[in-house]
């Protein structure tokens, strides 16, 4: 798998999202921490329902134990791990593999396992 360093860990905000450029694409990055461990997730920043680049500005949380972000425009929930929209399969977005390497945040264009 090909990894690209996209930004540093300091650019992220704990339990919230930021947006980074990955080539020409806008990717929403989320740093999730439950007190025990930290994990970074990457999905498209494009909100297919609101038709705007805003998913990085949504609130994250869990719905029935699925880790999600709620779109700030119309509040649909997107799974951070798969990009699947919980309310409507037609509103799924792409998810990317992402990892923390030291102070680097790296992503790969392949879908997460």
């Amino acid at each position, binding site marked *: 798998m090909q990894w690209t360093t*996209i*930004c540093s860990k300091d*650019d*992220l*905000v*704990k*339990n*919230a999202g*930021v*947006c*980074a*450029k990955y080539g020409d694409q*806008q990717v929403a*990055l989320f740093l*999730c921490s*439950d*007190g025990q461990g930290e994990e970074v997730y990457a999905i498209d920043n*494009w909100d297919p329902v*609101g*038709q*705007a*680049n*805003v998913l990085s*500005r*949504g*609130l*994250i*949380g*869990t*719905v*029935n*134990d699925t*880790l*999600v972000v*709620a779109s*700030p*425009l*119309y*509040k649909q*929930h997107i799974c951070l791990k798969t990009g699947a929209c919980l*309310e409507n399969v037609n509103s799924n977005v792409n998810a990317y593999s992402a990892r923390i390497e030291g102070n680097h945040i790296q992503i790969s264009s392949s879908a997460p396992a």
Partner: protein
Amino acid sequence: MKNSMKIVVVGNGMVGHHFVEQLRSASPQADILVLGEESRLAYDRVHLSEYFSGKTAEDLALTTPEQYETQNIRFLTDARVVDIQRDEKQVVLESGETYSYDKLVLATGSYPFVPPIPGNDQDHCLVYRTIDDLEAIQASASCSKVGVVIGGGLLGLEAANALKEAGLKTHVVEFAPQLMAVQLDAGGGRLLREQIEALGVEVHTDKATTVIGKGESCRYALRFADGSSLETDMVLFSAGIRPQDALAKKVGLDLGQRGGIEIDDVCKTSDQNIYAIGECALWRQRIFGLVAPGYQMARVAASDITDGELQFNGADMSTKLKLLGIEVGSIGDAHAKTEGAMSYVFEDQPNQIYKKLVVDSDNKKLLGAVLVGDTQDYDTLLQYALNDMVLPEVPESLILPNVGELAMPAAVLPDSAIICSCHNVSKGDVIGAIDDGAGDLAAVKSCTKASTGCGGCAALLKTTFDNELAARGVEVNTDICEHFAYSRQGLSDIIRVEQIRSFDELLAKHGKGLGCDICKPAVGSILASTWNDYVLSPDHVSLQDTNDTFLANMQKDGTYSVVPRVAGGEITPDKLITLGTVAKEFNLYCKITGGQRVDLFGARVEQLPLIWKQLIDAGFETGHAYGKALRTVKSCVGSTWCRYGVQDSVGQAISIENRYKGLRAPHKFKMAVSGCTRECAEAQSKDVGVIATENGWNLYVCGNGGMKPRHADLFATDLDTETLIKYIDRFLMFYIRTADRLQRTSVWMDNLDGGLDYLKQVVIEDSLGLADELERQMQRIIDSYECEWARTVKDPEATKRFRQFVNSPDSDENIVFVQEREQIRPATQAEKANKLKQLESIDVRQLETEEA
């Protein structure tokens, strides 16, 4: 059926595709072959005209080759079936190839009827049916200025919309005396015509076209039977459809006298191995030209092939749609043709609304209805018509404005009442979902889809759900969400008593999971109204909705609007100039709000700190327009200037606004102060309203505007300023502590046991002994107020978040503005696509010159 049964489907329109989907889900093994005549697989013909407002062929597609492949469905496009060898049970393609079948399904659809007018076969005389047709229309429109649609029915008006979207001067020519003669009566047709003409589309009724000849100023001229004529560059025929039955006719299947393949109640033709569905099929001498009945036929045919028992029993042809942006609805016997039928008509010319009810001779049942300009009653009326329900005592109340509105408590609503109009969910559906085991609101939402569209019915849905559970003796679960087993009031008590200062601490002690978009902002709000810590501190930042995180209001395109506080609506010329200067420098759209201040729209996230730096330097503060907090205290000009005023309402409003600014609450709230009983500040429509009297101030509480307006109740009279403020302190803090999340003051009071009287006891008579504590808590919040923007622009850690990209200085390319009425507005998707095309062509030209 046999496992390996071979099913061949001729035609891949919406109905053919629906059949394939139904059959595949009923029978994973069936060998399905789709033969489509067009070059692409099935797409959405209902929304065809959106092709001109920016939708692409991919957007309209209902499936893809990959999807069919994964479903193990074989298909051929550009495949024209020219023969059916019924004895050998095989179909023959134009290319000569043959395919055998066990069951054959004809979903060949229809073709547009082109009236036999001399000259109808010229280059720019087109039809409107397929994406290929649209491409031809687009090509023709690009070299035309004027376009005519022949046919003023439903499809004709859709086609007119397409021409209008393509930028042509558009005419509609109709043979009948009115538009949409099938669905509308004369009154509805007249109003529809007025509205369409107001959009710049010219309508010509009672016109029989006799010849399409050569024009003078345009390419062609239509000549009409009455001697008049009309010049146009192109002609679109949309004068009805004819069933595509040529193949069936050739192989000797039974057809109707006027065409259409005859089918029985399971959609079989006169050949037991051949089915016909959709617009090519004729059932009891009727063709069904809508997609819903076609889908029903598809389900019936799929069921019959897989040994199911569904039957086709005809279909309701009622429709609700938007034509050229105008809402139109037609139900049942719209023309009152039933013997003894009587009508009720309501017409509101100023607002361009027309509604008609057709009732039976006993005035008991609804037979039909016509709605133009406003179709919000459609769902309810359709329920009455379809279910044969007995009409209310006063049937006209169903269409008259402000009568029988949903202000009635959910408990007395009939089961047929529509709760969610986006997804057409009735109260009965909600009850059904509860019967089927949906134990919480989330479960009801996910199985009925209610409240997942615009969300405007969320409160009504919750009340309906709670009432229903209460009626069953079930204890209503007031847990705020799956992460905390407490109501908002419970969480508020815990936070105050245990002195909890952060969400993480609360979650660790009293919750589970990670939280969500419901509990996080609610807890953020409780923490703010208890401790008033900086909302963007690292502990709190992840709790806020985007509006609170960026201290601005997100608009539909992802940009933000900025509203500085203008307490009481009083503003100096210098500050007005600053607003203008800032708006000009950052190219922001300006609008005056209902709360007497100025809203600046179109700020990119990275511009917000720059904009606020300038505003704060000029003495402005944040207006909290983004928060569930105090918005404004509106005022009239009061005794200082007004010859009727009895007190200084502006001064009082400013002092009240400055006292409560930034106060977080379960819902946004508004206040107003009027200087006399004429009430120019509309204080009785606010959560807290103050009206001056000769002797002091009258206090009103729990009013609101918005979706369900409510007048405020008189709470106390002739108060001096000190007592007035004391009561407001207690009232607001009691509300903040005890209300549910997103509950307005009016709903909160209505739900208090004892209502207004109880509230008076608590606030005025201090019946709970809480008054001192409530006042102290309010004072603590007031003392710790700081302008969040003043702090944010000084804090480099906080401003760091105001970037589009953490790893690039670029801006979001999807944010594009165009000019309208001398200001910016967000570009539509179509305008963005156009702009891109222009940019690309510029790039190409530049490249060419560079190379040369």
